[in-house]
Structure formats: structure tokens, C-alpha cells
């Protein structure tokens, strides 16, 4: 089973690495990181904070843009180009294809994250001359990467039954909703109507709470979440990811080609 997943993953990795959009996005991220040096220099005693802020944001945007522009096409292109006809007639399960696609794009994002992070740390080292605080930045980047892997699964799920444009729209919508969980909680707290309160509570638990993975601000102000909170966040990602995988599997199993 793992061999087949790995074969799909490596092919997906190869496909995304050879996609020109990937390089446009990577250059954009590197430009933001590079420009943070200049912006930091014209700010008043905030240069290090600005470099860190820009660096973390650029890396996070890089991850999200790769998912939106490359991930949304993943399954749709296979159906459109009829490459699925070849693959699914071989001894491979649809669940293995989903897993392989997820792993392949995760690998691409990991590589691009590692490369941009190295530049980010380089810029930071040039500015402050020490590696102090970098482990916390790595932690924030890693949590962002875990969030990205969750969004990849969301993107794969949508690309299984909609066009790439709609898949991108749905993925971005879910991404924005996922980062607005505190707004939903606020609505629940302020509501007197029990039915509306109940509906929003259900929505709060159905939609992914992506703010759990955002410790970028905490890291900037040296406020690091405790280990237990971080461990629970990882468990949450695993559970939510498994649920998404099962839904995607259900959709793909019912589909005929």
C-alpha cells in the first residue's frame, strides 16, 4: 500500500515542482522577506519585529497560495486529462490516490517552506547577528505547515467534485471562516435566541478552527503556548484531517469515471 501512495506522492511532487506558478509564488515570498530588511530599517526601533512579522506572514502566504493555485487543480486535472482512466484501472485504491496527492503536495510545501525559512533566518541573522528566538519562529512555521496540510485535504476534497475555480473559492472561504472562529464565538456569546445560538455552535464545531495553528503573534511578543496546548492542536489537526480524508474517500468511492 505504502509503495503505491509513495508513487502517487512523488508524481504529485514532480508535477507541482514543475509548475511555473510555484516559482512565481516562491519569488513573491522571497521578495517580501527581502523587502522586510528595507522596511525594518525605516521603522522606529521596530526593525526586528517587522522583519519577523513580514517573514512569518510571507511563509504562511506562500503555503496558502501554493494550495490555492496548485492544490485546487490536483484531482480535477486528472479527471479532465483522463489520466485517472489509466491510474484507477491499475491495482490502486481511490483512498491511496487521495493520500498520495496529499502527501505529494505536503512535500512540495515542506520544501518551499524550508527554502523560504532559510532565507528568512538568514535575513534575521544579518540584522541581529544571533540565532536567539529562532526555535520559536520554527515552531510558528511548523504549526503553519500543519495548518497547510489540513487545507490541502480540504482542497483535495473540493477538487473531487467541483471545477478548479470553485474549488479555490470554497477552499479560500473555508480558510477565512477557519480564521474567524473567534468572531463566531462572539456571536454565540451575544445571542439570546437559543436556536441561533445552537446553529452557530454547530457551525463552530463543524468548520475548522484554524486560529489554533496561529501562534505568529504570540511568538513576536515572546508569549509561547504551553506544551499541552500545542499537543492538543496537533491532535486536533490529526482528528480533523482524518475526518476530511474519510469524507473525501466517500465522495471519490461513489464517483464513476
Amino acid at each position: 500500500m505504502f509503495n503505491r501512495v509513495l508513487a502517487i506522492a512523488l508524481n504529485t511532487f514532480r508535477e507541482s515542482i514543475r509548475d511555473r506558478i510555484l516559482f512565481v509564488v516562491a519569488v513573491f515570498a522571497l521578495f517580501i522577506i527581502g523587502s522586510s530588511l528595507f522596511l525594518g530599517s525605516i521603522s522606529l526601533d521596530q526593525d526586528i519585529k517587522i522583519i519577523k512579522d513580514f517573514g512569518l506572514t510571507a511563509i504562511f502566504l506562500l503555503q496558502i497560495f501554493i494550495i490555492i493555485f496548485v492544490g485546487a487543480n490536483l484531482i480535477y486535472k486528472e479527471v479532465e486529462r483522463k489520466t485517472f482512466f489509466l491510474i484507477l484501472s491499475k491495482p490502486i485504491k481511490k483512498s491511496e490516490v487521495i493520500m498520495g496527492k496529499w502527501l505529494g503536495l505536503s512535500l512540495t510545501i515542506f520544501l518551499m517552506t524550508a527554502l523560504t525559512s532559510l532565507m528568512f533566518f538568514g535575513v534575521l541573522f544579518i540584522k541581529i547577528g544571533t540565532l536567539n528566538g529562532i526555535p520559536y519562529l520554527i515552531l510558528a512555521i511548523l504549526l503553519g505547515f500543519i495548518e497547510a496540510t489540513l487545507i490541502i485535504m480540504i482542497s483535495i476534497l473540493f477538487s473531487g467534485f467541483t471545477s478548479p475555480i470553485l474549488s479555490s473559492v470554497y477552499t479560500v472561504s473555508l480558510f477565512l471562516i477557519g480564521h474567524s472562529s473567534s468572531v463566531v464565538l462572539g456571536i454565540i456569546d451575544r445571542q439570546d435566541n437559543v436556536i441561533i445560538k445552537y446553529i452557530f455552535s454547530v457551525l463552530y464545531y463543524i468548520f475548522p478552527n484554524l486560529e489554533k495553528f496561529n501562534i505568529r503573534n504570540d511568538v513576536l511578543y515572546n508569549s509561547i503556548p504551553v506544551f499541552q496546548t500545542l499537543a492538543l492542536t496537533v491532535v486536533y489537526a490529526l482528528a480533523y484531517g482524518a475526518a476530511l480524508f474519510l469524507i473525501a474517500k466517500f465522495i471519490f468511492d461513489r464517483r464513476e469515471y
Partner: protein
Amino acid sequence: MSAIEIKEVVKTYFNRRDSSTVVDKLSIGVERGEVFGFLGPNGAGKTTTMKMLVGLTRPTSGALKVLGEKPDAPEVKKKIGFMPESSSFYLYLSGKEFLSFIADIFGLSKDKKEEKINKLLHEVNLYEARDVQIRKYSKGMGQRLGLAQALINDPEVLFLDEPLDGLDPMGRAEAKELLIKLKKAEKTIFFNSHILSDVEDICDRVGIIDKGHLIAVGTEQLICLTEF
């Protein structure tokens, strides 16, 4: 036990407003080692039948068996080869990379994979172009690569959808030669085509389908003599 059994198979596609039956009460049996030509005009139901036989789509009613099992059984998929109509590939891969990817899905060992790929590339006359990206292949080269990928697992049963389509006369002759070689190796071949002359030299028996209905089945000579 027949290699391929199709019994009373119906395939209907349902839309929101209407439905269309593309295969209607189709029954065919193909024996082991037999080369069966499935002829019919475009849109007759040949490709849908083949998609059901390789487990890509399910029949609305009726039963299909390949090597005694349901077509979507993993054990069956290990023993079959399928070449879709106008094969689609990952254009960013080279011919060799593509075959290597397919071999990985079948779990071929590294040594066996290398040996098998080189042998197939020679057989379909693509060895010289093995490192060229598929996007630069001609249609005929694509068809030959499609045939090579269908043979990577040394299948017992081969499903070929219009395998000679797009080939120039030289390519047709080479592909026919390869199919005759496979016939001699006692492979069961289920072969879709809309050109009678394509099946003349290769097939033991021929079935003719039109608008989803099987019109005739028998030897090619018998069908030529039959009025329908």
C-alpha cells in the same frame, strides 16, 4: 472458466432531466487466449463497456466478470492491462518516467522494473525517445506509450480501446505485429475498434455493437456473410 463474462449488462446514465441507456442487455463471453474484436461506430457503447470491464464505472444492472472475479477486485486489476482511447499522460514526464510510475503502482522491484521498461520501450519503438517529455510526443508515439504501459505488468487479459487509432501505416503495422506476438503468447485480448480491417489480421472472433445493442457475434468471416 471464461476470461471475460458479460451477462445482461445495462448501463444507463441519469441526468437531472432525462436518462440515456448506452449499453443495453449486453451478453458476451471471451475465452482465455482468445482475441476478441469489439466493433461499432463512434458512440455505440464500446468504450463504456470497456470502462465497466476495467472497473472504472459500474453497470446499472447485469453482471461482469474478468478472470472469474468482479472487475474492481484488486486481484483482477493486477492481472489486466488497459489502454484507454487516446491515452492521456502526465505531459511533464518523459516516456521512461511515466512507465516507471506505472511500474511503481504495480510494485515491480527496481531491477525487474528497469529490465521491463527497457524491453517495452524497444518493443514499441520508443527507446530513442525515452527521455523526451511526453508533451513533445506525436499522437502515434502516445498510442505506442499507451500500449507499453498496458503491458508493464505482463497481463493475462488486455483491454485495448482503439489501439491503432492515430497511427501512421508504419506504426499500424508495428502495433499489429506486437498484438500478434501477444496473441501467440496466449494473452486474452479485448479489442475495441470502429475499423473492420483493424481486426481482420488479429481477432479470433468479432462482436458488433450499435446504439448499445449487440447486433452480431462470431468469426469475422461469418459476420461478413451475415446480413443485418
